[in-house]
């Protein structure tokens, strides 16, 4: 709490300090020092960052950021729970899958520490903006060695300081009518200008609107430039959001949006040191490490053998002597999966896992419990 208070204070001071300076002076402050800015392509770096000179555009799933489904995401459908399914028996259980938080068809843009924002192609709308971070793609891209996603979802984690969140129905009004009342908007595409910033084009009813999103005149502000081809009267209004009109003429609207949120989000999970291995921790690891993707619990076939009844079972290998599965073998299979390949499966499918001792033991406890 205190940390976040000081953080806010810091940014507020900074904002005051820079209030009147033009955006190019922000540019001068930041060196294009990110890997992406230097190389110009995405690397194995799981936390890629662009820069003011080299914005990073990334189509991806993103978190909703807590924006309202009803108001902000009305053109998305409603997911539901569904019965858990055993691939081994073909039966459903009374347990259910819960959907997770995410928006599927967005464009995330990062300009280094200055600004990140998410624009959604389904709603044709800015969802949220943040500074001092971007997206941690680890969940999606995995690490270089393992090549698998980390965790159950494929939604990258947002990190940084969120200063703007979309509120209320679509804020753009065309000739006095909110886009929300014109039916689902249709995203048409975007152009990259000389500054490599995207300008989005979309259609609401018969109106064709373009929008460019850029850093505002000070930190934690956004500049939005709308144009419309038929020179309609454009107006921007959003609850609880301070909006300053810079320019307005038929078919043109330029505004600056001031912060309406303040939330520091870290992507770093606290590394919890496990002292005592338990079956429950093992079960959790089975999901979070991604074991679930290849090893079923119900006898179902997949890329890897099922874990059902594996402990104590006889195992035959491609080129090693057969053995009865014990703890030592399980440990070896997690730590050095290349050591032995079970007959009927492909070698090299499983990455090695470097875990805490107690994590290995928890996994083994869990595997032993799968009967």
């Amino acid at each position, binding site marked *: 709490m205190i940390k976040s208070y000081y953080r806010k204070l810091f940014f507020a001071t900074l904002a005051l300090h820079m209030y009147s300076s033009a955006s190019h002076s922000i540019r001068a402050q930041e060196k294009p020092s990110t*890997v992406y800015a230097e*190389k*110009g*392509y*995405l*690397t*194995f770096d799981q936390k890629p960052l662009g820069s003011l000179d080299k914005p990073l*555009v990334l*189509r991806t*799933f993103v978190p*909703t950021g807590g924006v309202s489904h009803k108001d902000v*995401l009305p*053109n*998305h*459908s409603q*997911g*539901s729970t*569904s*019965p858990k*399914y055993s*691939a081994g*028996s*073909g*039966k*459903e259980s009374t347990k259910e*899958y819960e*959907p*997770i938080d*995410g*928006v*599927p*068809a967005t464009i995330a843009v990062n300009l280094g520490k200055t600004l990140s924002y998410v624009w959604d*192609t*389904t709603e044709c709308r800015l969802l949220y903006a943040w500074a001092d971070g971007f997206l941690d793609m680890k969940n999606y*891209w995995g690490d*270089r*060695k*393992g*090549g698998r*996603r980390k965790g*159950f*979802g*494929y*939604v990258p984690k947002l990190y940084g300081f969120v200063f703007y969140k979309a509120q209320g129905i679509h804020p753009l009004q065309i000739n006095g009518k909110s886009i929300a009342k014109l039916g689902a908007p249709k995203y048409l*595409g975007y*152009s*990259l*200008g000389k500054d*490599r910033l995207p300008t989005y084009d979309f259609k609401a009813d018969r109106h064709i609107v373009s929008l460019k999103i850029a850093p505002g005149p000070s930190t934690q502000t956004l500049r939005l430039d709308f144009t419309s081809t038929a020179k309609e009267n454009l107006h921007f209004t959003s609850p609880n959001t301070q909006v300053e009109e810079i320019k307005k003429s038929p078919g043109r609207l330029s505004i600056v949006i001031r912060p309406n949120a303040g939330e520091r989000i870290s992507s770093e999970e606290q590394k919890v040191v496990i002292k005592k291995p338990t079956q429950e921790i093992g079960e959790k690891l089975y999901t979070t490490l991604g074991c679930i993707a*290849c090893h079923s619990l119900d006898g*179902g*076939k*997949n*890329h890897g053998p099922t874990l059902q009844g594996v402990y104590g079972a006889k195992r035959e290998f491609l080129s090693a002597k057969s053995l009865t599965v014990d703890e030592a073998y399980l440990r070896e299979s997690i730590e050095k999966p290349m050591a032995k390949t079970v007959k*009927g499966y*492909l070698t*090299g*499918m*499983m*990455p090695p896992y470097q875990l805490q001792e107690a994590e290995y033991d928890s996994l083994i406890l869990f595997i032993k419990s799968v009967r």
Partner: protein
Amino acid sequence: MKFNLFFLFTLHTLAIGSTSSYQIENMAFPDDMPPEVGGLAFDGEGNLYACLRRGDILVTKPGKDAASTKWKVFATGLHNPMGMELIGPGHVLVTQMAELTEIIDTDKDGVADRYNNLASNFGISGNYHETNSICRDGDGGYFIALGTASHNGPTFYTPRGKYSKDGRRGRNFSSNDLRGWVVRYHQNGKLTPFASGFRMHNGITRSPDGEIWCGDNQGDWRGGSPIYNVLLGSFNGHPSSLVWDPDLKGFGPPIFLPRKMLDDLHNKPAVQLHRTTMNSCGEPFIIESDQFGPFQGQMLVPDENARRITRVMLEKIDGAWQGASTLFLNTKELRAGGVRIAMDSSGKTIYYASTTRGWQSPDEGLQRITFNGKMPFHIKTFNLTTQGFIFDFTLPVADPEKLEKKLSVSSFCYEYGYRYGSSEKDKKEHKIISLTGEGPFEIKIDQLLPGRIYQIEFDSQLRSQNGSSMEDLHAPAKVYYTLNRLKRPSSEQAATLTQSKDKIEVKIGGESFATYHFNGLAQPIVWPIQGPGDVRMLRDYPLKEGTAGEAKDHPHHRAMFIGQQGMNGANFWHNQNKNAGTVEHLKVIETRSGQDRALIKTLNAWKDSGGKIIGADTRTLTFSGDDTAHILDLELNMHATNEDLIFEEFKDGFVGIRTHPDLRLTPSPKHGVKKVYGNARNSEGGEGKGIWGKRADWVHYYGTIEGKQAGIAFMSHPSNLTRKGEKSWWHARDYGLISANPFAPEKIGGDGEYRLPRGQSLKLRYRFVFHRGPAKDAKIGERFSAFAMDPGHPTSIMPDHPGYPEDYLSQKKK
């Protein structure tokens, strides 16, 4: 637009591997770049575009030295792009997760600056598995393959596109609009559904002859690793996507439909790649060039898991593609995770893209494989004959006279169901009857049955005359032939079909045989039916009024019809009654014609008087004939889709025909039938009116129709359901109604009520012989023996596999 163009210099060391005939080289990438290649294409000017799954599109002009490959970033910011087509230099189409995107370098500075959304009107659930790929449609548009989601990942509270709770069930699933479909993006910008039933068709290809091809991943509802010829309106086996098929509305979650119903709807894969020889199929690639070794016109399919490429030899048999597969290259020098192949303009080199991120250890990048002119030794062609196969090698084989000793033939089936892959079921070793020729070789074997996969394995010591071994390609000398359809004997009695909005008309040898009416009636019927010599076999009334000599009794006896007086409370026999149900034609699943027979297969919904679906049927009508008889085979599969299907005991049912009035046994002056010319007998020696209510294999009505000797034999297959394995019970009347009824009341000697549990199917098979000439010449007994031996249409449903949904669903009731 001015923008820094930068070249990415490669740091990888070059690894080269080779076979004697093909050189394999690694195209280098900067060491810090994840070379997860999802799409690959040439632009016509020798530039190779590669899209990487994290979002960049790279371009290079491949030179002689793969190690000094220079890549340039052409575009960026894409979400898992897995499909790419080049319009021209600097103009690319890409399928990424959320849309079909057109990418243009408008100012020609080498870097794209415009990204157009061409199509995004399909669902996206938020699940990682829903990747998309693309190919041209040959008409200015594109086909897009929309993969399904996996139960190994979640879906969002706020997905895009319509959401279906019924679709979000099972292992791989289609929770959102059109997942698991191939859709067509037309030149005019419209997107229309094209074919359903895919699990994860990672890659789609249009061959030079205009056919569309998809592979699919191994997995649930996939016995092997299938290659599909994608046809408009077809269902390709994986059920989840059927939630978006309007014809199947009202049947509940597709994964719990009776398996036999799904099997009947399934457009069978042209080729089933052997499950342990090939894991999951990448995008099929057709070798158009004659410079890439001896395999021009064949298909290559990379393996998404292992280090191998399969080669497929296709042929069209009885109107559909099927064929043989064998390994093309199987070497550790290849990378695993092959997904795409593109050929350069020399025609000698293919570029092979691989990516594994998400499913196995990293083994990704781009390799090129070049033919060096030295002929490899392997199977060159492999085709079906009426009694076996004809095949040839790329090089003359050593000791051809000893070849018979160096090969073995076996066959097996893959089972269809929710399970992840199938083991080899019903395995058979085959006897070789003969092996002749010196190249090509013709092999005849003891038995060829459709619905099976034939494995032909050659001795590993097999050599060409110049001493080459198949080991050079590390590809075992093994061929798998997917036999969906037999090669039909050519016949002068060619069968033709003419389909219009309401009916399909069948002719045999140019003569009218029958017309199947499927619209506008309470249920689909066959009328009229002609025997050889244009003899009218059935009563016209009530379908046509005014035919001389016809009685207007029983207006529900409509030519050839199917129904039961009581099914779940609805009457499907007396369609004039208050509680009458209807059988609604939903779709023509397939038709076949040409050669010696025509075939119609349809799906129908059984609805009660309130319009509620109580069940379904899939029926296959097969029309064949010779000079003396026209033969109609009916395979009727009744499916308990929504609830247990109860066939109540009534004498009026189940498959019936009403004969021409001349075949009546007795006249009916009060109905205007004054003179009749019919006799009746059954397989058990019964005659005349006495055959009513008796059990028999067949009944035969014969006599003189409009002055010509003719008759109708109606046969019930011995496999049909009856009580205690007895023969069929016949509701065969003197006034010309003949029906086979497995559900007649017990008190009149019938089998009584039958309950078909939800999720299960009941198969009934009948044959009708419409002959000319005297009864004794019609050889009905012999014809029945042939029918009894006929295995019928192949099935992919194997008996005795407890735990399938149909058992699960029926157990739930108890």
